[in-house]
């Protein structure tokens, strides 16, 4: 239960939950498109969502927004020719026009020899029970105020964001397949800065419904980090034993999952290409304590999700005990290579309804610090961009709470570093893992994914230059 409570009798946001598409409504919209499609084969994809958000800055709410929309994508197939038309106008005439347009375009597109036939009906697990609702503007403003008030009392400045999403999706085709799923997710983040601009702290709270948020703990963490990070000192860039808080771990480890495409590996365009040819399935690439998976049970969706073709998702272990167990095979590449398609929804962070988990260990940050003679503690990374796809090497910077560890204690704040580093490299230098917890690892801190990551301690993390940014 969240600290600020949630009154079940309070009016919900105007756009929820009525705007969340039911299974019957989704079926009706899908049929409206299918029965009007002139194409020999047709697929209909429906995405419906309501969103409510509140932003705060300089210790006050600055803007907020609410919207709802339902988009329908109609893909027309004419043999191996295909084209899609997407619209948010759902009446029969509009959907018929969109279906006709998709078919007219499809007929003109050269055949795609890699196109796979539409799937027959699939069976999906039952949806889990969950109330899909959005908080009112007042509830969101109250949550924001918990953070801004604590910041104000400490002569600090809070900026932050609350985003809540709830919606439903469906997929249907002319071969009788119908998939339906619903989901909700919420996230709250805040950056708290000192008025002199020398200190900055950050914290997040992430979950599937508004009641999962814990703004009081978030406020306390961000405020503490802001106080502790004031007046940082510069230390030399170089290789350091580094403790990554769970968000920092997630910022970088999720990049591995994104690179696990079988085709790119088999064609020589990936870290997962085996030198000489083939891919790295079965090869050990990181420390044996590393296990990375996508699991529908972690997903913000109530049904666990289905992929673009309508295959129900299943748990996929990408790396187990340091060894590559799976790469993502789409249906075409799977057939070509004589394996089963990977039921992960595209692999990587997109997989299993945008759920990703790195299994944790038994250590914790306090113990990791205690056992560190000299090292760096990182709250999170930012502006992470690919540098070298051959090694999954990325660059980016630390942000909002970077500290020096000396003789088993966090001693002082340090200036931010830029890194040029690969998760593959530092996961080979693993010292310890904490428990896996849900974090927000997306750069713009939006709601949507469920990412579970442990704090980790690694040797020889490469920081390549200093930044004056606070």
């Amino acid at each position: 239960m969240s600290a600020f409570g949630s009154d079940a009798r309070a009016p919900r946001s105007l756009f929820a939950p009525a705007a969340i598409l039911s299974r019957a409504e989704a079926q009706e919209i899908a049929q409206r498109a299918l029965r009007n499609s002139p194409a020999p084969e047709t697929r209909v994809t429906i995405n419906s969502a309501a969103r409510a958000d509140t932003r705060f800055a300089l210790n006050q709410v600055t803007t907020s927004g609410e919207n709802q929309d339902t988009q329908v994508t109609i893909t027309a197939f004419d043999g191996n020719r295909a084209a899609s038309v997407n619209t948010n106008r759902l009446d029969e005439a509009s959907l018929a026009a969109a279906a006709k347009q998709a078919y007219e375009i499809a007929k003109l597109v050269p055949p795609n020899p890699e196109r796979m036939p539409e799937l027959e009906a699939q069976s999906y697990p039952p949806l889990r029970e969950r109330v899909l609702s959005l908080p009112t503007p007042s509830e969101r403003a109250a949550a924001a105020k918990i953070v801004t008030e604590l910041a104000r009392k400490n002569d600090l400045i809070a900026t932050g964001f609350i985003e809540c999403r709830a919606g439903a999706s469906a997929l249907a085709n002319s071969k009788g397949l119908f998939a339906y799923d619903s989901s909700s997710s919420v996230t709250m983040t805040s950056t708290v800065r000192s008025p002199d601009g020398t200190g900055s702290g950050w914290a997040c709270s992430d979950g599937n419904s508004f009641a999962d948020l814990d703004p009081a703990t978030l406020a306390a963490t961000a405020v503490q980090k802001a106080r502790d990070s004031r007046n940082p000192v510069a230390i030399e860039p170089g290789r350091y034993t580094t403790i990554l808080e769970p968000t920092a771990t997630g910022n970088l480890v999720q990049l591995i999952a994104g690179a696990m495409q079988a085709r790119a590996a088999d064609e020589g365009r990936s870290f997962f290409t085996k030198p000489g040819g083939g891919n790295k399935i079965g090869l050990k690439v990181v420390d044996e304590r590393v296990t990375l998976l996508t699991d529908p049970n972690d997903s913000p969706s109530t049904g666990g999700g289905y992929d673009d073709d309508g295959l129900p998702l299943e748990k996929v272990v990408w790396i187990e005990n340091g060894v590559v167990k799976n790469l993502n095979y789409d249906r075409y590449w799977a057939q070509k290579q004589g394996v089963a398609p990977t039921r992960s929804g595209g692999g990587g962070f997109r997989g299993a309804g945008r759920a990703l988990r790195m299994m944790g260990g038994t250590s914790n940050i306090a113990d990791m610090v205690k056992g560190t003679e000299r090292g760096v503690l990182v709250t999170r990374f930012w502006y992470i961009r690919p540098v070298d796809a051959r090694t999954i090497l990325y660059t980016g910077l630390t942000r909002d709470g970077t500290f020096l560890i000396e003789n088993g204690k966090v001693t002082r704040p340090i200036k931010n570093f830029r890194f040029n580093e690969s998760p593959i490299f530092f996961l080979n230098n693993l010292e310890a893992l904490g428990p896996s917890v849900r974090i927000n690892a997306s750069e713009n801190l939006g709601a949507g994914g469920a990412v579970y990551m442990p704090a980790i301690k690694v040797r020889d993390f490469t920081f390549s230059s200093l930044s004056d940014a606070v």
Partner: protein
Amino acid sequence: MTRSRRDFLKAGATVAAGSLVATSPLLADTGRIVLPSDDLPRADDPVIKALMQVAIDTAKSGGASYADVRVAARRQQNVNTRDRIVQGVSDTDTYGLGVRTLVDGAWGFAATSRLDKDSVATAAKAALEQARANRASQLRPVVLAPTPGNQVGEWKSPIEIDPFTVAITDKVGYLLAANEAALKVKGIRNVNSSMFFLREEKSLMTSDGSYIVQTIYRTSPSMTVTAVSPDFRDFQSVQGNEIAPMGLGYEHVVNSKLAEHAPRWAELAVQKLSAKPVEPGRYDLLLHPSNLWLTVHEVIAHPTELDRALGFEANYAGTSFIAPPKDVLGKLRIGTDLLNIVGDREQKGSLGAIGWDDEAVKPVKFDIIKNGMFVDYQTTREQATLMSDYYQSVGKPVRSYGCSYAQSWADVQFQRMPNVSMVPGNNDDTWESMIAKMDKGIAIVGDGSFSIDQQRYNGQFAGQVFYEVKGGKIVGQLKDVAYQFRTPEFWKSLKAIGGPRSYHLGGAFGDAKGQPGQSNSVSHGCVPSLFQQVNIINTGRTA
């Protein structure tokens, strides 16, 4: 216009307020405005205008001191190919209305795709409810800078060929021909090419009497070629991003001539496999406009956004090293005297060109950096008033520069950058003449990997093709190159710039900012520029 649409529009608009349908709002009913897909709504439709007036009236009668309402109909098309295959052709259209209300100095915003009178009124009420909820925690009310108001007019991107009228066969044929030209080069294993088109018709009505209709086009052809070594131990790509996205029509695709460029990009990718890894160190660096635009975007355009400088974007996009305003305006030297930067929304074919911004302000061209000195920020109406004291002290009017933008009807407008561009040097220098004057150094074409901290101090930028220059000549390619700098030092190392003949517009189709993240399209004009003794790192780590 078809008969059915006009009739449906009338039916929708005449449904009385208060008759909200009890069934799902997502399903068609008699209260819906029905707009068949083959007949995209026009933003200036009188019935739509009447609905917008409903939103304004609801907001005003609910206590809003100011309100604006936007209706947008956006159509996009993507054509994607790989090698000899068309991977996807997709059309997207979206249509809806967003209303923003200011109540006692606090904002609220709501948007709906249901364009009937009741739904629009409900959205306006939702925006009012938010504004009142948000007011409770407010410390400083929003004050809007004055505008002339009563802005009425139309604006349209200066296109020659509407991309949505060009046959899909022509588009597919164009891309596959380009792929074929690249695949003929030995060593090329993978080619991707695409084209993306956008047309947005949007209308804006404000409570201070403005009504504006604009039609915006954007076009982006692109191509990437990848070479793989025979032993599967290396691969290298070249993106043809010398071709920038533009605020033009299909003529931009035609003029881009991808099939003519493709063999050259393919040869460069193959050569890159055996290129010399760069030796880290300090080098003179000549940056082509196709590379420099992104650096200007990240380390000049972003940190001169006033909301960043004041701390409003601290949680995501970040703050700015060009702050606080009172300490830096007219006082902070950013670069050498060669550095002159202007903001504008008028360069023909640029992504940022518009007639009015999303709060009915007619943009003006304005100086951001003058002879190396920082002189002004990018602003919106509410931001300009935060600078009143400064503007009055230097005799400038308190006005918005026209930087308010929302990516769609579903998103609230906020400060987004206009085109932010270099002013060319007063000389005849070009890329070629500047290489000829270089004794020893590196010349970079195309934008590549980029990463910058949240205050824009530390930047690391790569590129597409890295040339080693000796004695005024290109002597070969290098690989694994990135330049890394501290922003103020970087611009203070600016030694020479090209003249008007070498001016080139680069651009970003999807510049992200804000929470929820919104995408802005913007161009940056640059000239080739020589920087002295810049730190070059080698990014090709193997362990």
